[in-house]
């Protein structure tokens, strides 16, 4: 037993352990709300007992055992057939576990749970919210603030998602081998979305307390440990490489800095080496996928000493491969921009223009075209495109960045 723990120490234990404990509870009880309530009760009890009696050696197992007892109390009050069955199952596990509390290893049910939270039958918004709530242990209020929606909206989103899981009987199961790749897609998309949202949060108008980038990194690491699929490693490499350049994306005035203008000495070399090593190891498995390719593109940027030195032909080729795997106008835009960056302005611009009808409400489309036009010595057309990009932007830092670009035109 450790003594003398304060509230912050307890909070960090809760934070580190709650995901695993909550996952074990949800999967056993097959009920999100009951699991959350039971864990909350157990934490309240821990807050009361631990500061005086000391933190148990296996705090997580203690929390799980107490939460199971609390769940039994809740179920007793319900008196339905379902509750009765759940109560019996809980009694059985408690009897088995009680003898071995200190060396008891909590079953890691987070993999099952992440497949449930990211089930394609749920909307992407709901998948993200549910994953952050249950696997990262964020509160509805924290998630709401990070995604710039009201707490009421976020609570409704979570409630609806949980109701659908219960009503439509979405299973708490790891998909079988034939389906796993298809089902892995939304899981990776959710983690990448959480990561990308961290940029918006970083650039947003309201400061937020939650580090979504760290949460995404934590999730992808957990996922990789439980499911070592090359695309999971690809996503980890991609996030590692992106994060390495993060420090150079915002200048001291708090403004966005485009890749071509970034001070490359600010890039985290250690993280770049780590990301590249992981990527090379993963690519050696010869089972490529969209995340591995995006990580490879990121790695090429990371290893160029300057914008001019960038290996554009290889980047163009990689975007081409990505487009074959996941055809989308956004990937086609990136490829076209790379063609222009590589020196073939005419062809790049032509391909960019061909995409206009499909990307007419996409802010980055106009920003990218403006950028190419400016360098192609067409300031009049560039001006119109910057104005269009500013009109489409939803973010203050981004607008400032575009405004600055616009003012630089001659």
């Amino acid at each position, binding site marked *: 037993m450790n003594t003398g723990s304060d509230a912050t120490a307890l909070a960090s234990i809760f934070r580190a352990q709650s995901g695993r404990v909550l996952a074990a509870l949800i999967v056993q009880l097959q009920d999100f709300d009951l699991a959350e309530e039971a864990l909350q009760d157990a934490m309240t009890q821990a807050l009361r007992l631990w500061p005086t009696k000391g933190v148990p050696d296996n705090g997580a197992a203690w929390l799980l055992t107490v939460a199971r007892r609390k769940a039994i109390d809740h179920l007793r009050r319900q008196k339905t057939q379902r509750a009765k069955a759940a109560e019996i199952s809980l009694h059985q596990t408690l009897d088995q576990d009680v003898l071995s509390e200190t060396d008891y290893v909590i079953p890691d049910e987070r993999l099952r749970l992440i497949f449930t939270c990211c089930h394609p*039958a749920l909307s992407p918004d709901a998948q993200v919210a549910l994953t952050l709530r249950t696997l990262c242990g964020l509160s509805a209020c924290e998630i709401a603030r990070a995604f710039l929606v009201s707490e009421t909206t976020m609570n409704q989103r979570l409630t609806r998602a949980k109701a659908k899981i219960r*009503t*439509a*009987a*979405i*299973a708490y199961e790891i998909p079988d081998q034939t*389906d796993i790749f298809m089902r892995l897609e939304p899981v990776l998309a959710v983690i990448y979305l959480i990561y990308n949202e961290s940029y918006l949060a970083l650039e947003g108008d309201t400061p937020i307390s939650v580090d979504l980038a760290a949460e995404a990194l934590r999730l992808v690491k957990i996922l990789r440990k439980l499911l070592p699929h090359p695309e999971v490693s690809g996503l980890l490499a991609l996030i590692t490489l992106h994060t390495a350049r993060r420090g150079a994306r915002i200048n001291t005035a708090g403004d966005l800095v485009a890749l071509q203008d970034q001070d490359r000495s600010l890039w985290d070399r250690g993280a770049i080496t780590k990301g590249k090593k992981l990527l090379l190891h993963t690519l050696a498995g010869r089972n490529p996928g969209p995340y591995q390719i995006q990580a490879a593109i990121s790695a090429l940027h990371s290893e160029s000493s300057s914008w001019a030195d960038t290996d554009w032909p290889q980047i163009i080729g990689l975007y081409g491969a990505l487009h074959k795997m996941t055809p989308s106008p956004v990937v086609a835009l990136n490829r076209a921009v790379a063609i222009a960056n590589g020196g073939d302005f005419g062809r790049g611009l032509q391909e960019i223009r061909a995409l206009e009808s499909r990307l007419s409400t996409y802010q980055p489309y106009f920003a990218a075209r403006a950028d190419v036009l400016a360098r192609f010595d067409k300031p009049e057309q560039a001006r119109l495109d910057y104005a269009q990009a500013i009109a489409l932007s939803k973010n203050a830092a981004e607008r400032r960045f575009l405004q600055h670009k616009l003012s630089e035109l001659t």
Partner: protein
Amino acid sequence: MQYMALIYSAPGSEESYDGDMFADYGAFGQAAIAAGVFKAGDALHPVAMASSLQVRGGKTSVTDGPFAETKEQLGGYYLLECADLDEALKWAAKIPTAKYGTIEVRPIVVFDT
């Protein structure tokens, strides 16, 4: 758990079906019965044969055709007994119309007694 698989398709879209649809539906039904998931299933006549009815203020009104205009129309259904949504979705994916139409999978309400 019981799930209703509602089979929707746009009129005429079945022409794009590659294969013998009648035989494939027969095979699907046999497979579902053999696996013990089949509870019921029927095909419906087209919406041109439908009547829509409303009772408002005690007065019944009947009109021709479907109540709302939709591109895809309900053409049939299966009632399936499955362990969970994933099993139901797996069966729904085998319904021949899934290749050119849409299968909507809805859980059946169980009222607590």
